[in-house]
């Protein structure tokens, strides 16, 4: 039933407490948005789920035997490294079988399909550093998708994408969500309100987890510790934009 069960989870960096006593259950095929202020511990939560960080307390149960898909907030790789776009995406297909590992024809075909869907096909043989920031972001998303994970974690995946690419990616994610569980960190409250059904508010502790439509202004203000624009429930992103314009005109 639950794909992820987090119990009394705390995470410290030396003396800094990043997460404190988190309890969270994520259902199978849930599309969960995580929001919260800078330094709220969102990236930390994803990293501890991935096993990149060790919890100081508490436990995590994952109901999958595959590695989790991951799109990091920042990529730490050296963009000068001599590797082609195609080969970066193919990394998602690497397994523990290291001895004379070669990519199969099926995997090569899959890569071409996914590059086509992201409009990356014409860049496939370019060195990774010769792409723009948004294009690299697309490569990172493609690399996570090609893993075909049961659970997909995305840390602000659309931060550097234009609005066209954004809605393209949300369409793809929505489609994947039919049979996968997705957790996405986002600062973009509009997106959270229009695409995602459940939401978690994180600021060191978990302030709220539940239906997106029942999220109210008080909870948000408590999470962020300051007044926050109310999310326009059930409305399209455009309406929110309109309201901003009207305010500016005043």
């Amino acid at each position: 039933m639950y794909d992820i069960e987090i119990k009394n989870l705390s995470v410290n960096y030396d003396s800094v407490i990043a997460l404190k006593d988190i309890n969270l259950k994520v259902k199978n095929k849930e599309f969960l948005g995580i929001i919260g202020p800078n330094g709220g511990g969102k990236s930390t939560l994803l990293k501890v789920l991935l096993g990149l960080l060790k919890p100081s307390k508490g436990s995590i149960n994952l109901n999958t035997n595959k590695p989790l898909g991951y799109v990091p907030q920042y990529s730490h790789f050296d963009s000068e490294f001599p590797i082609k776009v195609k080969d970066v995406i193919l990394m998602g297909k690497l397994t523990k079988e290291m001895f004379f590992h070669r990519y199969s024809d099926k995997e090569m075909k899959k890569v071409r399909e996914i590059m086509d869907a992201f409009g990356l096909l014409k860049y496939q043989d370019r060195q990774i550093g010769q792409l723009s920031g948004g294009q690299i972001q697309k490569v990172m998303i493609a690399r996570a998708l090609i893993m075909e994970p049961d659970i997909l974690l995305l840390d602000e995946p659309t931060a550097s994408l234009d609005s066209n690419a954004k809605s393209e990616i949300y369409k793809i994610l929505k489609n994947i969500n039919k049979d996968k569980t997705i957790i996405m960190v986002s600062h973009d409250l509009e997106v959270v309100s229009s695409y995602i059904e459940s939401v978690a508010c994180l600021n060191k502790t978990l302030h709220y987890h539940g239906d997106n439509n029942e999220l109210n202004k008080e909870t948000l203000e408590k999470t962020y510790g300051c007044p926050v624009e109310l999310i326009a429930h059930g409305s399209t992103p455009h309406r929110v934009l309109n309201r901003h314009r009207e305010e500016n005109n005043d």
Partner: protein
Amino acid sequence: MIDVIFKYTFLQNAIIASILSSIVCGIIGTIIVEKKLVMMSGGIAHTSFGGIGLGYFLGIEPIIGAIFFSVLAALGISQIGRKAKTKSDALIGIFWSTGMALGIFFIGLTPGYPPDMTSYLFGDILTVSKTYLYIMVIVTVLLIFSILAFFNHIRAYLFDEEFLKVLKIPSVLLESFLFVFIALSIVVLLKVVGIILVIALLTIPPAISKFFTYDFKNMIIGSIIIGMFLCLFGLYISYRFNIPSGATIILLSSFLYFIMVIIKTMKKRFD
């Protein structure tokens, strides 16, 4: 020149050593340049002096001590760097100086006339023994086999370690394996061509190779070919004009590198 090669075994050995060194340096050099491990490799090479000193002190083959020390340094730098918060740059300095100090310390303790350490600094490709050629052949074959066997994972490790951890692939194992290989290669080359030429051969051919390609595999192949050309041409000049081989190869290498830089900038200006 050809008839001279057939006449003198030392020239034959030098040529074989050049070719083997170029292969090892092309592979290891591309790896350390792209993973920014040049300083660490220098550190490993110098730390091994402690082992050479220990070898003399204990009366065993110095290179055994050197291998022991360099492998320890390679693993130590990676392990301590991960656990303690010491910057790896500083850590390399600590190992580097401690290793050299230990070398001098042990040699001071060794009774009798002090051995000549300069051969380890500058080496001499013209005096390579048969035994070392055999050791080099073994290291070269092992290295080629490993890079072919683990190519996709090694490249992925060099490019994005974190993602390998996400995939639950034991990246620490891969790292240790690579570091031990770097240490072994450096020590074996050290005795043959000397530490200065090792660093030149590890860095210059990959740097030149990168002017021509953006592909990791091609960069390795390019480095090997460029390294062979530089070594063999350097040997020829050094034999012809009777100047030290190591210095000739290094100067030729950096000369070619700077020529490439100039061509590259000129090309940019006229494009």
